[in-house]
Structure formats: structure tokens, C-alpha cells
């Protein structure tokens, strides 16, 4: 890899802020130029814990409607009718506080069980729009995709989502992979989603075990499916370093994770039951304690609590195939759909040299970003629907209010936040987002935001446009340049031609509803242009 000299090679600030964040806000480009890429990146890679002040304020300002009729008393449903604009109140709650939503179902309306999910989606949109630490938001999305859970189809996952984001994904997004892996393995959300919590000695549930290998660590390229149980035939196995995994490794790891469960009130035996806290629990009597062999490594029988599972995590986190698989995905996210092999190899080398470093992931991200491949990848990635909305809001200073119609239209465009059904997570390839129906919704996003069709907030274009804008031509040029980073004449002419205006048509009286609607449309059309769809 040719590491670029971050001091001299010119990388477009607009591009960096769009790829490693959700696009520039006013003033961001100048601030970036003052720092230069390397210093800007180092700041981004070491964010302080928690939200910055502006983001925290936006989060506490946010209100999302919740409304449902009273429960049916004859069915023992104890809730009263509710219709209110409520803060994102579940975000900071520990799982114990939220778990009664699951454990005492009859007391709470179903809408209350979905609420932590909607709070998280709202927070995700708000952080994307407001956070100073934009790269953290990008990496959090990456890891949420990598360690995907579907909170739309399972209520316990929805209720566990705030802690999954706050305590598992967010604090580890630039950290150490082995550490994150155990946080995920012991998370309520994953234990439900991949159903390990119901796995028991005797005939273990293989769901988590399989996806741990295939999707979380070694990756499908390391699955030697023709070997099945013939572990000695796996190259390197007899020296204790098998190059890949086989079905038998999946079966054996499933056994290793038996007993890793959630304290959900389930009886353990005649005299004991788990508390109903929603927290992680290890139940020794559900664990299969006998000897195992995972990745050509023998596990002795009857190890201490959780030792078998932790040993599996050690083996997979340190495996070279894991380095390749995850570095390839990181490069795919940060650089190009089809990752340049040289850059992947360079990232793998940084990953492997830092297996035990507390900032392993930050170091890998740094190496990827400071590469010539990254510098040359402007425009290579499609903007996913959340990125379209957030980049539009940032560029236009639209103080966006998340609403259910917005959330549903992001889903219609191909990104149902925290709701991708398959454990692969949302595909990171352009084709997933540019089907006929999806393109139509992508265009609609900008249109609906400028016209406040979904209650996302009234936007006054005149309030953010400079006084020098006097004609429709100026306005089109201003929004094309602001949204795409380039003062391209093509889109400007297309917009003016499409609305039947001449470049020097005067704007007329400002701050009137008609003027704002027309200017809003011009901005929306600029956001519909091909250049804004990618970054």
C-alpha cells in the first residue's frame, strides 16, 4: 500500500466529509482544511465518551409521538389510553428498567415494547445529522450491520436495542475486536436474535455458532464445506492452525456456548429460576461440559464457567481469516464496493499486528483512510438512504425531527434501520439500493423533506441562502454546489430546463410561502441529481 503523505496529497474535504461522515455542514470544509486529513482523522478516531453538547441537546429536544387505546380489561390488559409527544426516554435506561415491558406484558401496550426501537432509530438519525464525531456514527452503522440484529420482528430485541447500541456497539466501535466480540456474544439482543439463549446441552441450537464463524469472524470464504467432519484434512489442522472451519466446528462451538443465556425468568430446576432482568446469565446446568474440538484445538471436559465459549472467541478473533474477512468489509464500507486487494492486505497486516491493542480497529481505519486507494475513491460508494437524508439535512441546516413516515420511507428505499431480517446485515453494495422502486423513494426523500410532507420540520430555504442569490439560476447553482460539492453546470441547466425557468429569472419577494416552496423544490431537485446519490 502506498501510504499517502497526508500533509501534501490533496484529498477533497467535501469527499472525505461525505464518505467518513454524513456530508459537510456549513463551516465544516473550512474547519477540515485548517486541520488537514491526518489531524482531522485523529480527532475523529478518539471521540470523547458520550454525545457532544449539540447532539445531546438535539437528543433531549426530540419528541416522538406515541399513541394507543386503553387495554382491554377483560383480557387483563392494564394500560390506559395514551397520546403524547414523548422524549426519547428509553435511550439511557438500563435493561433491567425496560425488561418489565417483556416480563410483565399485560401491563404495557405493544407500542411501548416497540418504543425503544423507535427511540434508537430517532437517535440514529439525530446523531447522523448533528454529531461532531461523524466517523463514529459511520463505524457504529458498520458494526450494527456486521453484528446485525432485527429488532422489528422480535420484541425482546427491540427492548434490548438501546443497551446493545450504548454498551456493546458504540464503546467498541474503534476498540478491540476480541473485546467487542464477547460484548456481542453476551448481549441480550444477540442472544435473542440468534437464539442462543434457548440452546441447551443435549442437542444444542447451532444458530449463533454458525453465524459466529460465517458472518461475525472467519467469513464464508473460510468455510470448507466439503470437509464436513474430516478435520484432519483441513490444511494446517495437524499443526493446530487450520486455514478454515468445517461443519463440525460449528456443531462443537454450539456446544461451547450452551448455557450462555438471558435472565428472563425461565425456571432452571425445581427450586430455582432465573430472575427477570433481561441481563446476560450463564447457567451451568444448561452447559454441555464434555470435551470438544474447535478449529483443531482440544478443549478438556468440565472447564470453569464460560471458559469454553471464551476459548472459541479467542480462537476465532485471532484467526487470520477473520482479519481478512473484516478488513475486506471495512475497506468495502470506507473505499469501494469491490475492495482493492492491496489495501485489504495492508489493513490485514495492521489488524494482525494489533490483535491485543485497545484501539485495534481505530488503527485499521486510520491505515485504510490514509491510503492512496481511499484518496482515489471519490464517488465510488452509493449513499444509503439514511446517508441521503442526513447529508441533505446537514447541507441545508434542516433541523430534522424524526417521524414514523420518515422511518418507513427510509425502509422503502432499502434501509429499515435495525430491521434487516438476515444476519448478514444490510448489503454494502450499490445494486441493493438502485432498483426501480428504490430510486423512486430516494428521489422522494429530498422532495418530502423540503416540503415537510412527513412532519420532519418546516424548512425555510431563504433563511440559509446567501443574499447574493438573486435569480433562479443563482439558486440552482447554489444548491447544486452546496449539495454536491461541485458547481456543475449540467445539473443546474437540467433543473432550470425542467422547471421551465431562465437562469436570470428573478426570485421575486422572499420569505413568502410561494417563494419558499419554489426554492425548496430547487434544493430537492439538486439532491435528486446523480452526483448527490453517491459520495
Amino acid at each position, binding site marked *: 500500500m502506498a501510504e499517502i503523505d497526508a500533509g501534501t496529497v490533496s484529498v477533497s474535504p467535501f469527499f472525505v466529509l461525505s464518505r467518513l461522515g454524513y456530508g459537510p455542514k456549513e463551516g465544516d470544509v473550512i474547519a477540515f482544511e485548517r486541520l488537514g486529513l491526518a489531524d482531522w482523522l485523529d480527532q475523529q478516531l478518539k471521540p470523547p465518551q458520550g454525545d457532544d453538547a449539540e447532539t445531546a441537546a438535539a437528543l433531549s429536544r426530540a419528541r416522538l409521538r406515541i399513541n394507543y387505546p386503553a387495554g382491554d380489561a377483560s383480557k387483563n390488559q392494564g394500560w390506559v389510553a395514551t397520546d403524547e409527544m414523548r422524549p426519547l426516554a428509553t435511550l439511557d435506561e438500563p435493561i433491567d428498567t425496560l425488561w418489565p415491558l417483556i416480563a410483565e406484558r399485560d401491563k404495557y401496550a405493544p407500542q411501548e415494547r416497540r418504543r425503544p426501537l423507535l427511540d434508537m432509530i430517532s437517535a440514529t438519525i439525530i446523531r447522523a445529522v448533528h454529531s461532531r464525531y461523524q466517523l463514529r456514527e459511520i463505524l457504529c452503522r458498520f458494526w450494527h450491520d456486521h453484528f446485525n440484529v432485527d429488532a422489528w420482528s422480535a420484541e425482546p430485541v427491540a427492548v434490548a436495542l438501546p443497551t446493545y447500541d450504548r454498551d456493546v456497539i458504540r464503546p467498541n466501535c474503534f476498540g478491540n475486536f476480541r473485546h467487542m466480540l464477547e460484548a456481542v456474544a453476551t448481549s441480550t439482543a444477540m442472544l435473542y436474535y440468534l437464539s442462543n439463549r434457548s440452546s441447551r446441552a443435549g442437542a444444542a441450537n447451532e444458530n449463533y455458532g454458525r453465524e459466529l464463524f460465517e*458472518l461475525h469472524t472467519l467469513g464464508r470464504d473460510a*468455510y470448507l464445506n466439503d470437509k464436513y467432519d474430516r478435520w484432519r484434512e483441513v490444511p494446517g489442522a495437524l499443526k493446530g492452525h487450520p486455514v478454515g472451519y468445517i461443519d463440525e466446528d460449528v456443531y462443537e462451538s454450539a456446544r461451547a456456548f450452551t448455557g450462555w443465556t438471558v435472565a428472563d425468568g425461565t425456571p432452571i430446576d425445581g427450586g430455582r429460576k432465573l430472575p427477570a432482568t433481561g441481563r446476560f446469565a450463564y447457567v451451568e446446568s444448561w452447559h454441555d461440559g464434555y470435551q470438544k474440538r474447535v478449529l483443531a484445538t482440544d478443549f478438556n471436559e468440565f472447564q470453569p464457567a464460560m471458559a469454553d465459549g471464551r476459548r472459541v472467541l479467542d480462537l476465532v478473533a485471532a484467526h487470520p481469516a477473520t482479519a481478512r474477512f473484516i478488513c475486506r468489509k471495512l475497506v468495502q464500507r470506507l473505499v469501494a464496493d469491490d475492495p482493492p486487494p492491496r489495501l485489504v492486505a495492508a489493513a490485514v497486516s495492521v489488524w494482525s499486528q494489533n490483535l491485543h491493542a485497545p484501539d485495534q480497529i481505530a488503527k485499521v481505519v486510520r491505515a485504510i483512510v490514509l491510503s492512496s486507494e481511499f484518496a482515489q475513491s471519490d464517488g465510488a460508494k452509493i449513499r444509503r438512504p439514511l446517508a441521503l437524508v442526513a447529508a441533505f439535512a446537514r447541507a441545508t441546516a434542516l433541523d430534522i425531527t424524526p417521524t414514523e413516515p420518515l422511518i418507513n420511507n427510509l425502509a422503502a428505499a432499502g434501509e429499515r434501520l435495525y430491521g434487516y431480517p*438476515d444476519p448478514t446485515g444490510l448489503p454494502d453494495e450499490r445494486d441493493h439500493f438502485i432498483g426501480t422502486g*428504490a430510486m423512486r423513494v430516494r428521489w422522494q426523500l429530498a422532495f418530502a423533506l423540503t416540503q415537510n410532507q412527513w412532519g420532519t420540520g418546516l424548512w425555510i430555504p431563504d433563511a440559509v441562502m446567501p443574499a447574493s442569490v438573486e435569480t433562479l439560476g443563482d439558486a440552482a447553482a447554489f444548491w447544486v454546489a452546496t449539495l454536491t460539492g461541485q458547481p456543475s453546470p449540467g445539473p443546474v441547466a437540467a433543473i432550470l*430546463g425542467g422547471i421551465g425557468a431562465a437562469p436570470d429569472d428573478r426570485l421575486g419577494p422572499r420569505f413568502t410561502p410561494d417563494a419558499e416552496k419554489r426554492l425548496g423544490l430547487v434544493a430537492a431537485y439538486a439532491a435528486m441529481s446523480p452526483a448527490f446519490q453517491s459520495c
Partner: protein
Amino acid sequence: MPLSRRTLLKSAAAGAIVASAPGLTVRSFAAPTRERPLLVVVHLRGGADGLNLVSPATDPDFIATRTSELRVAADGSEAGYALANGPDGTIDFRLHPAAGGLAELYKSGALAIIHAAGLTDGTRSHFVATDMIERGVADGASLSRLRDGWLTRYLRADPASTGPIAAVSAAGAVSGELAEWPDALAVADLSGGLAPAGGPQAREVLTRLYATGKDPVSEAGRSALSAMATIDAAVPRDPKGAVIPYHPDAAAPYDSAAEFGRPLRTLAQLIKMELGVDIATVDIGGWDMHEYQPGRFKTGVTHLSNGIAAFWNDTARYHDRMVLVTISEFGRRLRSNRSLGTDHGRAGVMMVLGGRVKGGRFFGRWPGLANAQLDEGVDLAVATDYRQILTEILRHRGAAPADRIFPGYVDKGPLGIFGA
């Protein structure tokens, strides 16, 4: 980069539509004139448990190894539908009791069942198996080499089948079977029409914004605008321009199929618009049941069966042309786990539905469930290569030789699904 064929076709199509738009709405009520077969691929995503959908209910090995909650019973209040003409005269094969619609189609002779069908490759990975089936291969080397789907190769080999609206995924994104087909459409819903938000002005601006770019997004945008115009022009509207809600024939109850109903309804609408849809894919997800399978499976089967029955009843005019095939990436483990679920297995069940299908019977060999008959001693073995079934369907359509569509596959000849 030269102008792609898509660009040319799309521009031509868009021009034609502008001229004939009012006629299209009329045509959608006219009798179909085309006699080309209409192929619908229904993908059961997640690995559906073929042994729980179509159970060898009285097989002693089945009863011995699998918990009763995950078997269809041959008697009692929960007994499944008896299926005549099974693959093994000594075993009573039963369809899941929630599959009333499918049972009726089987009885009517329109539905054929192929049990123990699937991938000859031994993968137990969803994503490898799905990719292989979508690309029409059965080995890792071909999977790395080929990027296009088997339907794409079929379309390429069949120049008559290349209208701009020929191939549709009734979904948010184009399915893998149509990967790399430049004209493949993804349309999940038509309830609001397909015009761009913002009306004629927005369409005019978009047409100009996307007129010339050579990048993939510009190409996709042009393609979308052209397809949207063609399809939207055929969506019936009232005098005020509001979309007239779709009324399925025979009042087909798509809602009884929950989320599976929407893409099927959309597809039926598209077919009846007579825009030239020849090939379609539809997904029904949620089959990866590692725990609490009995209730979830019943729900899944209910939706599958109701959906296919509704779609069939809604498209009666097309039965002679139609072949619908169901496929899942794999079946599930014979032995259930202690979560009352099943883990990834090998062979599953495929179904073929059509007006010219010689149904009401099984095709293909039943390999048995004794330990020595199982794949690796754990899973129902694959007795019929999924490509043998697809080849027979494509041949019924008069397609090119199998090896052009399924590279590396040596055809074993037809099973007789469409008669001798």
C-alpha cells in the same frame, strides 16, 4: 463507455409509451394475446424445513428421530393432508395442515411436488447456498467465476424475451437469479402508482438530470424513469388522477398471506397490465427456525399456502402460460434441537405449479431416512438436483441447452413434470 443496450431499449420504450399511453389502460382489460410461458420463482428464504412441510408421516425412522411437534401427523385432530401418488408406496406422505390451499392445488392436478431436492454441494451456509442457487451452480469454483443469475443467462439465450419489462423482482431489490440482467426491475408495490413524487415537473427535471451520465447511478436512474413511466401509464387512475385500488379477480384474499401477499398482488397487477412480464421472482422470508418452530412454521406455511392460492386464483386467465416454482436454499436437520427448532440441513422440497403441469403427484426419488441413507448421517440427502427441475421448466419454455444456463451441469433428462 458505449451506450448500453438498456439505454437504447429504455429510450425506445419510453418513446413508444408516450404515444400509446391511453391505449395501455384499455389493453389491461383485454384478453392476453401472448402465449409465451410465464415463469414465477418463489424463494423461501432462510432454509425451509421440507420435512415439516411435506412429512413422510409414517416413516419409522422419521418418527424415531424427530420430535412429534415437528412432524405432520397422519391421524388425529392435527393430521395433515394426505397426498396421493407419493414417491414411496410404503410411506404416507402428508402436507402440513396449514397448507389447505396447496393441498387443493395438488388434488386438482396443477401442483407437483419434488421431495429431497436441492443443491448437490454440501454447504450448510444460507448465504453460500443462496448464492449458488441464484446463480444456478453447485460448486465453489463456479460461484467465484460467475456473477450473473441463472435467469439472466436464460434471458440472454432467448432473444425473444428481452422486452424492457420482461423480468421483475416483486421486491425492494433485484433478486440474485436476475443479477447482471440490465433490464431487471425491482418493484415491491404499486398501490400509489409509480410516478415520481413531485408530479410532471419532477419527472421533467429527473429526465434531464439523468439524461446523459455514464455512471451506474445515472444508468439506474434512466432505467427507473423509463420503467416507472411505462408501468405508471398502465396503472388505472380516476379522473382526479388518484390510483384506483387494485381489485383482484375472484376476490383473491392476498391479506391472508400477510407480508407475502403484497409482492404477489403487485406481480399479479403487473402481469395483467400486459407489459410483457415473462419472468418474475418473489420472496417469502422467515424460514430460518432454529427455535420454537411449531408455531412459527404453521404461520409461515399458512402465508405461503394462502399467498400462492390467492395468486393462482387471481391469475386464472394465465394458467396455461404460467409455471410457478418454489425453492429454498436448503432443508433442515432431521433431528431437531432442544430449542424445539431445527438447524441447517441439506435437501428440501420443491413445488411446481402450472396449468400444464402434470401434478397431483410426486416426482423424483425418495432417498429414505435410515442413518445410512442420510447425508453425513444427519440430513435428508439430495436425490434430485434443483437444476434438473429448473432445466425441465426452461425446456418447457423452449430454452437453450441446459449447460448454457447451468454451466457444468449435465442434464439427467426430464422428470416428466409436464408429461412424457
